């Protein structure tokens, strides 16, 4: 990928709830982006980094991507090494299955299931402390809203974990794929810095 072509971030417009928040976060960070995938928008390109902001349910996101014919292009660019940042359900659908949506296949880029949080209060809502599993990443507080968490079969993909009556996968980083269970766009200066750091590492 040449650097001039990759100086624009593609944000997948799947018709979901947090798209506006994520775009406003990118505006604050002065990251150039374009919305892709919906009608009258450019098609998803395999030449530019991709951000998938996901809220809602596992099956809901898979269905919306399918309706916009984005599943196959997304799967192939993930496999081709295109930089990807997934947020919340945008992390979960990288895996194979979810307890939230039995019978619905995920993108199956990474092995492992997504399971319901086992805790007295679900969803988890609020700021939790994430700790890195990979060297040289800072720890800090980020904002979560989730009822489900991924259980990667390959522990080396874990980037951050946090504690909510159990230790859980807060973020993954593996080759071209970065994905976070929390909402960096709502996680103050620390969350914004994470998005900026990711962008600077791929653009």
């Amino acid at each position, binding site marked *: 990928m040449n650097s001039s072509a990759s100086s624009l971030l593609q944000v997948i417009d799947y018709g979901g709830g947090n798209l*506006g928040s994520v775009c406003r976060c990118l505006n604050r960070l002065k990251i150039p982006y374009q919305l892709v995938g919906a009608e009258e928008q450019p098609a998803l390109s395999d030449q530019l980094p991709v951000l998938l902001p996901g809220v809602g349910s596992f099956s809901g996101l898979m269905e919306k991507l399918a309706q916009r014919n984005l599943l196959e292009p997304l799967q192939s660019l993930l496999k081709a090494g295109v930089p990807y940042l997934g947020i919340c359900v945008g992390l979960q659908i990288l895996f194979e299955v979810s307890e939230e949506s039995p019978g619905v296949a995920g993108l199956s880029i990474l092995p492992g299931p997504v399971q319901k949080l086992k805790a007295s209060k679900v969803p988890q809502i*609020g700021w939790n402390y994430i700790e890195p599993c990979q060297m040289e990443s800072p720890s800090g507080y980020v904002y979560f809203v989730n009822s489900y968490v991924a259980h990667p079969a390959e522990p080396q993909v874990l980037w951050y974990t946090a504690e909510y009556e159990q230790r859980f996968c807060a973020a993954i980083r593996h080759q071209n794929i970065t994905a976070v269970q929390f909402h960096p766009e709502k996680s103050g200066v620390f969350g914004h810095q994470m998005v900026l750091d990711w962008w600077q590492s791929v653009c």
Partner: protein
Amino acid sequence: MLTKRIIPCLDVDSHGRTVKGVQFQGLRDVGDPLEMALRYQEQGADELLFLDISASHEGRETMVSLVERLSEVLMIPFTVGGGISSLQQVLRLLSAGADKVSVNTAAVQSPSLISEIADACGRQCCVLAIDARFWKRTDRPVWQVLTRGGRTETSMDAFLWASQAVELGAGEILLTSWDRDGTRSGFDLELNRYFSDNLSVPVIASGGAAGPQSFVEVFAEGNADAALAASIFHDGEYSISQLKDVLHNAGIAVRVL
């Protein structure tokens, strides 16, 4: 671990100003909500709540335009409430950039509003606000639901109402003690503990905030997941960062910057 949240509340009038009630004297202008929000964000507020206290058409329009401006600059979640009575209003506020809405009186009158919001936007967007006043003690303490800003009594048991709302799709309960509100005598620990221990969603304690010790108590003894206050922050008695230092030193998990 998940931290306890501190949530400043800003009452916004139809002119788009933050106001506070002063006993027997009506409302006093305490500042520009946007400037105040940025200050609280800087100090380490975990979320913000904006309440349209006008409940008028003009106030609703003012709030939508304020939400648009807030969402450009806020890097933390914020909730909007006050007079919300339809899914249409909710969708407008969320698309303007609010993260959550809180509903109160309209949900009492029409509980299906809660499931409509949860179905359309997800339960994490739907905060049910309850104004509760102590009623009686049977085999357990019972609080009564008040509506219309405390002006109207109902015959509803506040805990049963909260339980029903959670089943309908409320993602959080904003629980205001009408016995403590405005008294600065501390949060109602029994109320908050009873709700928090017996509900499967987070409880935001409100009403009675006093010194930093009252926050320590509502988390350590009241088991609240978050605590909300207005005047003590607006008056600048102490900043949110000072409050969080006290909480941290008392062994309460809070997000410190």
